[in-house]
Every structure is written in C-alpha cells, then in structure tokens.
C-alpha cells in the first residue's frame, strides 16, 4: 500500500494544511485561556456560599458535562445567530462554544485545586487584612493553579483533539483542511494520515511536557 503513497500531494497542500492547523491551535489556546478564567470563576462561585449564584454555577457545569460535545457545537451554531441577530461564522461559533464547554471541565479541576489549599492559608490571607478577592488572587489561586497545572494541561491535550469536531459545522481546522485537500488532489488517505501524524506529534509532545512537569512539581513539594 505504501508503494502507492503519494508524498507530493502533502508538500503541495502544506500551506493549506498549515492554515487549518493554525486555526486548531488558535481555537485550543483561546478556549484554554478563556475556559480556565471562566472555569475558575465558576469554581469560586460554587465554593462560596452565594445561594442562587452557586446553584447556577453548579447547574451550568453539570449540564455542560452531561451533553455530548458534538451536540453543543451544533446547537451553539444554530442558537448564537438567533441571539446576536447576525451569523458570526463557523470559526467564531467554534471559539465561543469551546470556551463555554471547556470552562465546565476546567472548573472541576480548579475546584479540586482550590479545595486542596489548607484553610489556614485563607485565614492567613484574611488575618493580614486582605479581602476575599485579594486572598484568592494572591494566596489561593496561584497555589491551586500550580498544583493543578499537569491536569490542566492534560485537559488541554484532550481539548486539542476535540477541536477536530468543528469540521461538523464546516469550520476550517486541521481535519477539515486535510479533508478538503484530500478531495482536491483525490488523495484522501495521504491527507488523513498526514493530519493524524500532526495530531499525534503535538499531543505526544504535550504529554511528555506534562510528565516532566509532574516530576518537577513533585520535587518542589
């Protein structure tokens, strides 16, 4: 089979694939950053006794974690234009969807991270006169984030793989680019294999970094 493998189509379609990959990476980075920020706020809302706000945060997280991602992607794609009044495009829709969806998962990680910080640390922050936000921002969250960094990154690897689902709404990510290139050159096998190799290299590389990080954090403790 490899004898029929045409490497020339890969070089020919490289610029096109590159664009798809860039969008996949951009989507991952934005959804990770936004997801961690929004997720942390959700975690804080759940852990503080804020009544309805805590309840809403809990519901949001549980809802997002109970619906298949593909459905959320399709759903947001249909619903967002109804809210904004104008179509925002598959790429923007994907960015909003992934940020909102990943926030639920990052929120669970940050919640565990916040809970891993001893209560005495919060007391110490309050005792020198810092308020809730100052104590969270300077004492609790930096430590929670550091403790959870390997798990946050592992979630990001999963996120990067999941971004391939946006091909369903026609957003041009790595997978979609490979599919289009495969069709254009009539060489789908080559292009899908190439895309798979790129996913593998990036995810494997990230996993390696996570492993190294875990060892380093273990030493610091």
């Amino acid at each position, binding site marked *: 089979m490899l004898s029929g493998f045409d490497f020339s189509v890969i070089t020919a379609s490289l610029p096109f694939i590159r664009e798809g990959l860039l969008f996949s990476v951009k989507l991952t980075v934005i959804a990770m950053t936004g997801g961690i920020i929004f997720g942390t706020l959700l975690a804080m809302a759940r852990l503080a006794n804020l009544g309805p706000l805590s309840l809403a945060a809990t519901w949001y997280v549980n809802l997002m974690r109970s619906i298949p991602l593909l459905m959320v992607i399709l759903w947001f794609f249909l619903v967002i234009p109804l809210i904004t009044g104008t179509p925002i495009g598959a790429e923007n829709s994907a960015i909003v969807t992934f940020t909102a969806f990943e926030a639920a998962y990052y929120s669970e990680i940050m919640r565990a991270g916040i809970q891993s910080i001893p209560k005495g640390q919060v007391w*110490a922050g*309050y005792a*020198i*006169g*810092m308020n809730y936000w100052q104590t969270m921002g300077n004492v609790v969250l930096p430590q929670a984030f550091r403790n959870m960094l390997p798990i946050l990154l592992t979630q990001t690897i999963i996120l990067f793989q999941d971004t391939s689902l946006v091909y369903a709404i026609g957003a041009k990510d790595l997978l979609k680019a490979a599919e289009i290139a495969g069709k254009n050159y009539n060489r789908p096998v080559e292009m899908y294999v190439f895309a798979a190799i790129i996913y593998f290299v990036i995810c494997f590389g990230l996993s390696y970094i996570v492993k190294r990080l875990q060892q380093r954090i273990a030493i610091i403790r």
Partner: protein
Amino acid sequence: MAMIEIKSISKWFGQFQALKECTTQVDKGEVVVVCGPSGSGKSTLIKCVNALEPIQQGEIIVDGIRVNDPKTDLPKLRSLVGMVFQHFELFPHMTVLDNVSLGQVKVLGRKPDEAAENSKKLLHRVGLSHHAHKHPGQLSGGQQQRVAIARALAMNPICMLFDEPTSALDPEMINEVLDVMVELAQEGMTMMVVTHEMGFAKKVAHRVIFMDAGAIVEDDKKEEFFGSPRSERAQQFLSKILHH
C-alpha cells in the same frame, strides 16, 4: 483601657457548642496567656477576636470597633490585629521577603520597594536578614514562625493574637520564637497568647486564662494562677504540664 473586650460570647459548630458565654478582656499593653486542654476552645476563642470565626451570641469589641457588627469593615479590622498560627501558614509560593511585604502592598497601599525596605528591617529584627530571598520551605520551623511574626508586625498591629505558636516546633527551636515574643511583650505590645509554655507565662504574662470544655474556668492575675488556682481542673492541668 480595654483593647479587646469579649462579652459573654457563645459559638456553635452545628449542634456542638464550642464556646459557652465566655467573658474576658485584654487591656492595652497587657499580655494574657490562654491555656487549657486540647479541644477546650482556645483556638476558636482567639479566631473569634478577628472574626475568622463568626459568633452566634455575645459581643466582641476591639479598640472600640464592634467586631460582629455587619457594618464593620472586617479586612480593615483584621489589618489592625496581628495573628500568628500554630502551623505558621506562610505563603509557600512566595519568598520570605514577599510574605512580609504582601499585606503592606495590598492592604496598606505601600509602594513595593518601600514595603521591601520595611520588610528587611522586620526580618532583621527577628534575626532572619540572610533568609529574605528564600522560600518558606527552605527554612526550619522556628525560622518560619519568626517570619510569620514579622509578617504580622508588618501591618503595624495594635494587638497580636498567637495560637500555640511553638507547639508545632522541635524543642530546640521553641526558645528562638519565645525570645521574639518576650521582646514584643516587653516593648508593650498587647498580646493574647494561647500557649502551654508556662515559662513564658511566668516571665511576661499579666494574666492567665484557663479554659475547659468551651468555658473560661479561671481568669486570674498570673501570681494568683500559679500560686493557687481555684478550680480543681486547672490544678490538675497545671500539675500535668509542669511535671513532665
């Protein structure tokens, strides 16, 4: 003049009553030692003073400020009351210098370099000038607790609370911490100290409070307490910790 007034306070954790109508006061410049068996409510009592724990009944007044008034600015109040914990509770992700500077910058609004200058002076005072750049994890327990005292002093507190500051320390490190505390007491700092170090109590305390099962059982001048405590519980407790 009263610095800390504790008026008939009661506190529950769920169904469990941890404090039972405790009443006492600490005057300006006074050093009061609180002792009693484990679980008697000592930590809870002093955490109520700076509202780290809320109370359900009674009233606490610190320097004229009603601690349990919902209108009270708690962060402001807490910045006036220094607190030192049994397990130090330094911030492990920051250097020693930043630990001492944090509150000055965030709460007192000092410029970072101004705060650092002051922190260095305080670290010098507790004998830790050479450790400013280290992280707490690199210090011994005794050194960490002295940093914690410097961190509390950095806020220019009007009184200080200590919760068993030496009971997590190896015996050979207890004195380096007590020495700093004795010095503070001799400079006239108002202090409420939970400790079983009766040597410290005899040296600098003005009064000794003995707690048992959430209640203040004895509240005597030091001389009376060590001379002849009135309650049998306190006598038993004293003989236990003085003869071992």
